[in-house]
């Protein structure tokens, strides 16, 4: 009796679990066998802990306001086959074009290119922001979920954000390096 009910619940969970995944999770699922991909996750709980830590409480740059709007972050990256990974991610975004709207992009002769997508609900409300980036062989997906809007993006674009360690932000050569876990 209990086993049957457990199986019923399991089946129900499987159906439930089929529901919302962010872009990064989806990309990892679709590329399950790819061992060159690494995924970093910051859960909503950890986001809150950030805001409650020294960083959040003593912030003067405005980054705390930005982080306050975030629920989660996931970063996917690979050091190999940057263009293949990028193209796969881009085609995934295009496939879901009813869900993800491209809001920005650039392409520097294929050596450095990026696309930024947002997922919106009820018009102005941005619930997910996805950046795809390729620099030579390196590929990165940065995926934020949260409570954002165009004002948030404006602030994000024009705020000089501090780089962890205190160095000047704008000219960081390989910012991706700092994202790596040892």
């Amino acid at each position, binding site marked *: 009796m209990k086993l049957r009910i457990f199986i*019923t619940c399991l089946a129900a969970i499987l159906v439930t679990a089929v529901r919302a995944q962010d872009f990064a999770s989806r990309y990892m699922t679709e590329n399950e066998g790819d061992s060159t991909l690494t995924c970093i996750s910051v859960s909503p709980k950890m986001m809150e802990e950030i805001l409650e830590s020294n960083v959040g409480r003593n912030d003067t740059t405005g980054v705390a306001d930005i982080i306050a709007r975030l629920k989660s972050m996931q970063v996917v990256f690979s050091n190999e086959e940057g263009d293949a990974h990028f193209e796969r991610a881009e085609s995934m975004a295009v496939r879901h074009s009813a869900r993800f709207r491209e809001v920005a992009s650039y392409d520097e002769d294929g050596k450095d290119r990026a696309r930024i997508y947002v997922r919106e609900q009820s018009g102005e409300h941005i619930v997910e922001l996805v950046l795809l980036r390729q620099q030579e062989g390196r590929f990165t997906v940065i995926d934020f979920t949260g409570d954002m809007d165009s004002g948030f993006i404006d602030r994000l674009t024009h705020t000089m954000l501090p780089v962890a360690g205190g160095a000047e932000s704008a000219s960081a050569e390989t910012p991706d390096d700092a994202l790596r876990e040892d």
Partner: protein
Amino acid sequence: MQEINFRNDILPLKDKLFRLALRITMNRAEAEDVVQDTMLRVWSQRDEWPALDSVEAYCLAVCRNLAIDRSRLQANRNEELDESTAERPDAADPHTLCVRNEQLELLDRLIGTLPEKQRTVLQLRDVEGKTYKEIAAVLQVSEEQVKVNLFRARRKIKEQYTEINDYGL
């Protein structure tokens, strides 16, 4: 955002969903119930975007899970949806098979002896014409796994079918 309309987006899937549910439950009445449950469930969650690409893929996934679930709950249903080659009884439903042709009836029964995953993959590929990618999305597995299941399913059916026919000669 995307407005899902029941009549235009969900209802037209009824036949595909029914065929899949039938393949898994092997019972027309059960299959119909599963389709109904699937549609109502998906419709009630229409404000959420499903994690899968399309409404169709999402419906197929929900349908499959509900069909598996229902198969397990049936008291008179065989317990295994796994690697069992037991000859399945025709169940309580003599109208399970829509085709009157004996050969096709045989094939229906043979497919019914396959484990659920293989059956589902075979159904989605050979009957519904889905790509490996789409099938992988519905089953939440890799395309490689889809191919493996399809390979086993096609081979088993071919072997058993030709064996039976040879023997019958």
